[in-house]
């Protein structure tokens, strides 16, 4: 089980801020493929990966990051702090 969290318009498109996902995906990209296969709202949220950023266990990383031992994956648009 991995906690998957969404922020900003990713959260709005998917319609929830957080969910637990039963998955054996090896990488973030594999997890994205599984989520897209679920429902249109996921498919649409992940259409353009270049518009998305990902953090694994609260560290920014890439979509090819491995998920072994990971507890939390977060998807969100480019950050606009400051």
């Amino acid at each position, binding site marked *: 089980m991995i906690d998957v*969290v969404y*922020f*900003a*318009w990713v959260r709005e498109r998917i319609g929830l801020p957080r969910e637990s996902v039963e998955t054996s995906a090896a990488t973030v990209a594999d997890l994205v493929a599984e989520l897209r296969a679920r429902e249109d709202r996921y498919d649409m949220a992940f259409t353009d990966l270049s518009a998305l950023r990902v*953090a694994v266990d*609260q*560290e*920014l990383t890439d979509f090819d990051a491995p998920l072994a031992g990971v507890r*939390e994956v*977060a998807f*969100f*648009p*480019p*950050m*606009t*702090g*400051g």
Partner: protein
Amino acid sequence: MTVRLQEAAFDAGAELNAFTAAQSNAGAVVSFSGIVRNSARGDLVAMEIEHYPAMTGSAIEAMIETARGRFALGDALVIHRHGRLAPAEPIMMVATASRHRADAFAAAEFLMDYLKSRAPFWKKEVTASGAQWVAPRDADEKALTRW
């Protein structure tokens, strides 16, 4: 170092004075304050700021540690708000203290560049005609390349 994430407004001047008073023998203190600007059409109702509570604090602390490794940085303060803000309200501030001004300026700019594009905050402009997530500016991503 001090990192504070909060919904409440803060008094930038009082924070600057407290930060300065806490330094020993710093010759230079630089501060940056970010303020909610109105929309291009002047119809901003609110700026909503979402963040990633489990990550934000540690991400900013890591940025300050990186700045410490690159500049002669005596101390740093970051305050960043989240939630719903009105136009002209303070969003955030950074303060840096060093012996000389070049390090204080460089560390403050470094922290601002990273906070803009690498700290997990997302801004949404709420106007009379609807709400829209703020798109990142190309200039902000480009600013990171200088470090």
